[in-house]
């Protein structure tokens, strides 16, 4: 493909939630946007993650971004139209199953309130059992966030991609970037589908982002690829109207509107960036299954119909990289370490601000690209 030279073009690399949301916000502001995706939209972690839309349990430095993202999720229809039906709001509950878990939760809420965050609240066992009458075990209380929920991730990403196209963005799939070169204040982006010229480049390439940064001549990023795993069961009667976790454990448990349970959280398999293949190691999910069946005995008899994984990039501090690169005209947004789906809309807005030289409404200091740079 031969693209005409365009001095003002912004190229976004990566068709996941971050890339598509960025393309959308830039396009709505009338920018000339082209998004390059090496496979197809939402092929990896963005399309096949657990779909948790949660503010609960965030690292405190990430909370402002998460709250800003929730504002956008709450008006999602204005942005992605009909795709909004893929978002299900309910409540998110992270229960304690022992005293250690209870202490973790109580301390967390106290710490959050001290710095002015009140969206996480403590629920006593009686209230939890009132909300979840099918719960099979007593709890030691738990943390609640009202209005968190879950979404079909692929649909949401596709929603942002379609909305971006409606506002004039250009999407190029099956297009892998092979080189990135500075060229008189702009960029020459060589791909498997030809040469693209751009004024600015946004790196939203997920697990592949460190490789792209390297192509662009950036310092090395300590980004590790893994494939977080999930399992889905056959359909069962509805017993769980919330998304659930357990304090001190990495479980994530929800019941879709189809009646299927999705069980996962924190268990990673190896990923191969070369082949784009995420492994599935079902036995590693055994502890999560055990916990799910402890919470709801009925789940024990549900057949698991599929386990899968999606490739994601992890940073050593589990915080994303969002900010300007060292090279002129390069902006990074990657390394979400398996909790970037909910943040996506706010990250897209912030990256659009950076590209346009505006001050993002959320401070991005904690996510600085050079925080790991050796002095």
């Amino acid at each position, binding site marked *: 493909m031969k693209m005409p030279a365009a001095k003002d073009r912004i190229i976004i690399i990566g068709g996941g939630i971050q890339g598509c949301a960025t393309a959308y916000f830039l396009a709505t502001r009338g920018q000339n946007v082209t998004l390059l995706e090496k496979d197809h939209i*939402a092929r990896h972690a963005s399309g096949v993650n657990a779909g948790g839309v949660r503010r609960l349990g965030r690292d405190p430095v990430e909370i402002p971004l998460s709250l800003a993202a929730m504002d956008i999720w709450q008006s999602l229809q204005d942005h992605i139209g009909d795709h909004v039906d893929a978002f299900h709001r309910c409540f998110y509950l992270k229960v304690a199953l022992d005293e250690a878990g209870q202490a973790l939760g109580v301390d967390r809420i106290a710490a959050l309130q001290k710095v002015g965050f009140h969206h996480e609240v403590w629920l006593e066992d009686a209230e939890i059992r009132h909300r979840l009458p099918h719960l099979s075990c007593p709890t030691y209380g738990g943390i609640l966030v009202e209005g968190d929920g879950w979404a079909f991730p692929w649909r949401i990403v596709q929603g942002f991609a379609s909305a971006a196209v409606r506002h004039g963005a250009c999407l190029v799939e099956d297009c892998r970037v092979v080189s990135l070169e500075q060229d008189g204040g702009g960029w020459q982006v060589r791909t498997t589908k030809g040469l693209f010229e751009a004024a600015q480049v946004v790196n939203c390439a997920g697990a592949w982002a460190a490789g792209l940064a390297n192509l662009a001549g950036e310092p090395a990023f300590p980004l590790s690829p893994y494939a977080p795993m999930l399992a889905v*069961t056959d359909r069962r009667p509805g017993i769980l109207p919330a998304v659930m976790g357990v304090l001190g454990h990495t479980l994530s448990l929800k019941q879709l509107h189809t009646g299927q349970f999705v069980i996962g959280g924190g268990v990673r398999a190896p990923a191969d960036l070369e082949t784009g293949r995420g492994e*599935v190691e*079902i*036995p590693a999910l055994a502890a999560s*299954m055990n916990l799910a069946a402890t919470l709801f005995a009925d789940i024990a008899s549900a057949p*698991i*119909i599929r386990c899968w994984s999606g490739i994601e990039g992890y940073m050593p501090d589990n915080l994303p990289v969002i900010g300007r690169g060292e090279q002129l005209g390069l902006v990074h947004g990657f390394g979400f370490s398996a909790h970037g789906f909910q943040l996506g809309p706010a990250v897209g807005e912030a990256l659009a601000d950076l590209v346009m030289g505006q001050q993002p409404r959320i401070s991005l200091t904690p996510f600085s690209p050079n925080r790991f740079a050796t002095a």
Partner: protein
Amino acid sequence: MSVKSHYDLVIIGAGPTGLAAAIEASQHDFSTLVLDDQPAPGGQVYRHITQNRDQRQANSYLGADYWLGADLADEFLQVSAELLSESRVWQITRDRQVFFSRQGAAQKVQAGAVLIATGAMERPMPIPGWTLPGVMSVGAAQTMLKTGGSGAEEAVFVGSGPLFYLTIWQYLQAGFAVKAVVDTAPARMRLRQYLLALPALLQPGLLLKGLRWRAVIRRKTDYHVAATSVAITGDQSATGVTFQTADGQRQTIAAAHVFIHQGVVPNVNLTMATDLAHRWHSRQLCWTPRTDMYGQTSVEGIFVAGDGMGISGAAAAALSGRLAARRIVANAKGSPLFMAPIWRVLKWRQAAIRPFLDHLFRPPDEWRVPQDAETIVCRCEALTKADVVAAVALGVSGPNQLKGYCRAGMGRCQGRMCALTIQKIIHDHNGGTEEAVGYLRVRPPIRPLTVGELAALAHEDASG
């Protein structure tokens, strides 16, 4: 029986391939474990053989080929190989850990080598009404016959293929009245097909047997050849079969039981889920794992043999199992493979009729994709051909991307009943090769595994 934590060879499937391979490996003092779904050895073709052979007289309708399985099973029961029945293997890792569920708990065993001998499965036949109660696959009908001699009176058989005629013949021998046979094999072959079929003359016995079955079926049933546009009628359950006869007449036959069949294809669920390399077999219209002549797949130490590497029938499957076992033993012990070339010739000889059968019963497109837009394609998610076509038209390059646009292949069966149909629909729309369209990505667990069974693995790890 207590299962050891390590075996030199773990075989998945106790059909002719698995049994023959286990016998061969045992003779070389290889510690061998056979894991199988069913309560007794035999696989699909020799199902229930160890029970049925005690009443061979009463069960004579199953035919001489079936009783060959009795000798194989007897020989297997004499050797040192262990059989763990009712074990559902749901994942093999590339480092040859084999995970399975048995009696409500998940277990694992480490294998020096793995032989996948999971045989064949029936090709889907999505025609109008195929999901109605009262409609079953011919394979399922045969299973009923083998396990307790039960069957349905006055059934109509629709389809073609060796198993199709064999099962009808067995039904008739067992004394069931067959109401009609609607044969969907195309009217005639082309010259090229006859030429390709020449090696079949090496197996005149099989050819004669086929002709004999057809003669019996023709004599004893209401037999219709070269039927097209077949549909099963009925609202709540099947009430009849309607089709176009060879001379263009529309005909309807009332029936409460309809058995359908369109041939068998390799059961690739385990090989696909293990992410072994596969290729599209354009003559048999199915996927097969890429292997060398011994069945070594793209992952070292994981072998596949029998119908799972391409349909060639029970006799060739047993030889292919022996061949794979012999290679595995030779790899481990560095011993020579004197007999292997002879077996390869024998195996080819046993499968010489295959190209002929493949051409004779090659399903025309009409039987691979419904002609009628309202026919169900994905039965778990109740999606019609029109639903799938509409999603494909949005710009889908393959079955995996399709899942984002509609839930085809995402239900309980995970595409086992529809993946080949979906692939063909996408191919019809997009063009190119079927190999490039690709198959639905198969992920473990490939056999039912409950949350509770998997949770048991957590307890085992905690205690062990």
